[in-house]
């Protein structure tokens, strides 16, 4: 029976000791411990959040980079295409110009050749004329050397002259 009979003295000591232990522990142990645990948990979750955010940002940046690269590629392709077109155009124009120039040159050449030809023909004509005169002169000289011939000729000429 004594086992289940509370003892007043022990109860007083127990209440006193436990109150002191409770008070001291709450003030000097549990408060700092619980605060430290909470702070630590907070800092851990903060760090995890920060890491997550950094990761997301990194992904975003990477995505942006990809986009930029893609844009740059398109730009490059465009530039190359344009450059090709310009090149082709230039070549085409040059070809065209060359053609025109060539035909001009040819035309000029043809003209000058014609001119030269005409000049040469004229020269030849003149030469032939003078030569013909010379020949005629010489022939006349020969034919009109003696008087009989001169007379004959004059007669002939006079005969031919029709006095009509």
């Amino acid at each position, binding site marked *: 029976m*004594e*086992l*289940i*009979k*509370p*003892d*007043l*003295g*022990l*109860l*007083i*000591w*127990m*209440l006193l*000791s*436990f109150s*002191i*232990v*409770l008070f*001291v*522990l*709450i003030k*000097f*142990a*549990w*408060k*700092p*411990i*619980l605060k*430290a*645990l909470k*702070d*630590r948990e907070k*800092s851990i979750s903060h760090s995890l959040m920060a890491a997550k955010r950094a990761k997301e940002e990194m992904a975003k940046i990477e995505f942006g980079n990809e986009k930029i690269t893609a844009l740059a590629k398109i730009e490059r392709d465009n530039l190359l295409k344009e450059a090709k077109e310009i090149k082709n155009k230039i070549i085409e124009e040059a070809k065209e110009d060359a053609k025109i120039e060539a035909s001009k040159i040819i035309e000029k050449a043809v003209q000058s050749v014609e001119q030269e030809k005409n000049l040469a023909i004229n020269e030849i004509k003149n030469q032939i004329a003078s030569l013909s005169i010379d020949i005629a002169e010489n022939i006349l000289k020969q034919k009109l050397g003696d008087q009989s011939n001169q007379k004959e000729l004059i007669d002939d000429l006079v005969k031919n002259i029709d006095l009509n």
Partner: protein
Amino acid sequence: MYKILLNISIALFLILSIQENNFASENPTEKDPEHSETHKEKEKFNPGTFIFDHIKDAYSWHLFTYKGHHVSIPLPIIVYSKTSGLSMFWSSKLGHGHTYKDFKIALEGDNKDKIVEVDYHGEFVDRPFDISITKNVLAIMLSGALMMLIFISIAKSYTRRENLPPKGLQSLLEPLILFVRDDIAKNSIGEKHYEKYTPFLLTIFFFILLNNLLGLVPLFPGGANVTGNITVTMALALFTFIITTITGNKNYWKDIFNTPGVPWWLKLPIPLIPFIELVGVIIKPFVLMIRLFANISAGHIIVLGFFSLIFIFGNMDPILGYVVSPVSIAFTIFMSILELLVAFIQAYVFTILSAIYFGMASEEGH
């Protein structure tokens, strides 16, 4: 802190060595059923008294028996009697039925094993107001001091090593602290109010756990049956009861006196439900008190019972005693391991039930 403890233990040892001589000069009387194997043959072994002497509180702390002499730590006796006022003396003065200053330890009657005041003829006069530092009081003080030492030191490492993982003793106790905070307090009380109660829950959890474990250690400073003492469990339950009552909010009291969802005729002419609820308020801490006390005491009784088997059989025939002892020791070890489990479970149960009561007290409206 360690130095202080060392000094205390040295002082205790000195007192002990002085008092031991007092004991050594006296022969143990027939009323000492303590387990001394040397003169067991002559003495009738009584397992009942053997067991209850181990479970009960005592005025001195019995350490061991050497060659028939009991070696105990004498403890201060503080009594206040109506006739002679306040008296303080060492418990060794009252050893073996001696009377000192009209005080003696009663051998029988209602106040058996308690200090009583006697007259000139040795007749019972009165039971004085007794606030002696008994074995259990000393054990409570020592375990309290140990708790303060441990937790203040780890609190220091928490503040010193801010935001760093725990180390040493800190990492041993942190899982338990987190267990009490998250699984007991937060789960039972709720996110909103648990922080207010967590320090108390931590204190009772570690107080019960430490004393349960110390109770399993047969050597000083263990061996005192603190949590298996109804007075101690009563004090603990009283704390839970007081905190529940003080922090109880409007809803808590409304649930008791005007329980919602109950027909009015159960409340109005005769307040049946409020009465039952009010009884429940008292019963809750009462059950806490009984459960812890009964579990721990029962465990100790069983362990000691197995142990007594050795002496019971040894009394019949010494050879039989030797034969039984390995079996008995095996059972004792098994029970001790089970007790280790019970030590945790009971600390947990007391704490979680307290937390549930706090949860009821601080619950918001439905």
